[in-house]
């Protein structure tokens, strides 16, 4: 494979794309939303368990999509656990910037390691058509937190 392809499909993306983590429906999930990217036909459901203190105790997803959208969703569920709702939104902002410019935003204190882990998603910045693949799960997560049931990447 040539190197620039390897840049988009890094091992982490391929691994999470093939073996998505937290690919399940938690019985105690209390926030959920469905997100779709009509252009690709990608569709995922994000399921969150948020406690009384607004802390995400569990994050999971289901659905299908390309390697990038599956990997992004998988990484997201790993990173979100234990975060407050506010922190989740800040991380989502960070991913949006990563995916569109490759740069870093103001990272909430203490989450450098998380952003570092998510930095593989910056590889889509050179592929305008794929940015929505990387951000679908995050938009859907925000919709779930906002109490919307559906969101679309149109």
């Amino acid at each position: 494979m040539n190197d620039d392809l390897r840049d988009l499909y890094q091992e982490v993306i391929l691994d999470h794309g093939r073996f998505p983590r937290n690919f399940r429906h938690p019985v105690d999930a209390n926030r959920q939303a469905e997100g779709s990217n009509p252009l690709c036909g990608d569709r995922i459901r994000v399921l969150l368990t948020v406690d009384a203190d607004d802390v995400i105790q569990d994050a999971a997803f289901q659905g299908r999509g390309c390697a990038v959208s599956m990997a992004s969703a998988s990484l997201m569920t790993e990173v979100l656990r234990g975060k407050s709702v506010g922190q989740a939104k800040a991380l989502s902002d960070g991913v949006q910037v990563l995916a569109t410019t490759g740069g870093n935003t103001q990272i909430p204190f203490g989450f450098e390691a998380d952003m570092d882990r998510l930095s593989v998603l910056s590889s889509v910045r050179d592929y305008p058509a794929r940015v929505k693949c990387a951000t679908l799960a995050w938009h859907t997560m925000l919709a779930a937190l906002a109490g919307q049931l559906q969101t679309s990447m149109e």
Partner: protein
Amino acid sequence: MVIGRNETPAPYDVERIRADFPALGQTMRGRPLVYLDTAASAQKPHTVIEAEAGVYRSDYANIHRGLYQLSERTSAHYEEARETVRRFINARGHHEIVFTRSTTEAINLVAASYGRRFLVPGDEIILSELEHHSNILPWQQLQEDGGIVIKRMPVGDDGALELDSFLDLLGPRTRLVAVAHVSNVLGTVLPVAEIIHRAHAAGAKVLVDGAQGVVHMPVDVQALDCDFYAFSGHKLYGPTGIGVLYGKEELLDAMPPYQRGGGMIRSVSFEGSCWAPLSAKFEAGTPAIAQAIGLAAAIDYVQSVGLENVARHECELLGYATRRLSDLPGFRMIGTAPCKAGVISFTLDHAHPHDIAQVLDRAGIAIRAGHHCAQPLMERMGLAATARISFGLYNTGDEVDALVAALETVWEMFGK
């Protein structure tokens, strides 16, 4: 695909044909471009590019208006283009050929003009499940605005039309059947002659969406006896922005104008206006003059190669690609109807269509991935998306080999 078997085919010189298409000579990401997306839009031969440029260079003025030589010359070329289209599909008269912007506009024209004038609430239109959105949405508007009932002609798991179900759907309220000649997703060639025959017997009119039809096989609208036939220039190796609506004269005559404006009137007063005769009645405003002349050049080009020869060449490529691709692990062809044109939709167990297209792009290979503007068909097939390759008259067996090699890379990346 109908191919004459009693003639000895001249050898098909694909390299000579490729030399006519300047865009095919370029490299993409360091590799020769392999263009396998002709069903989306075809590349253009020199003659088309030159014809269009030539209009602007020396033969351009507005048409049917000027009392000077340049305008008369441009008008003559524009009408000659109409005559070229008439001969191409063997329409009875040149006034049965209406230039539109695209297939989409041609279908919208029929829906808006014929549909609104002649269909009443409760009337039925039959569409097939494999239609492109542009042959669904204009009719859906009649359903929303005019109480027209849409009935769905089912396709089988192999992507072939279920003709028996169609016959069951035909009833006393069926007014129109609108159906693709060839599926843009699956390549299925529909039995339009049979559909037209049966629809007429039931008193219904038939519109054929020929966007993928005229590019793959000779079409004779009189032999088919279709009431309307629509196609685009850009899929036929011609310019964008030009399409054709063929309609039987008595139908077009009875239909009201689609758009109103300059060029389509006999007389205008504030008390009322009279329309120009066909085809001008349906060509309001300054038309796509250079594009119509470019389309005629494209038709001349395709006919110089011979559509029978194109059909035979694409059929060979289809057979070769089908054999080679079927050996790939996890390969599943979507659409295996017995009668197919040069289109292959597929999925791989291990990779999403978008990932497939992305990896192929890195190998200089252009394909389409997605729902191909046919979401009802995707739903019928239980898929969100497919990868699609489509052949044009310039594709080669070597390009199929390059495709297979690149798909092996996809397997190495995502499947191993």
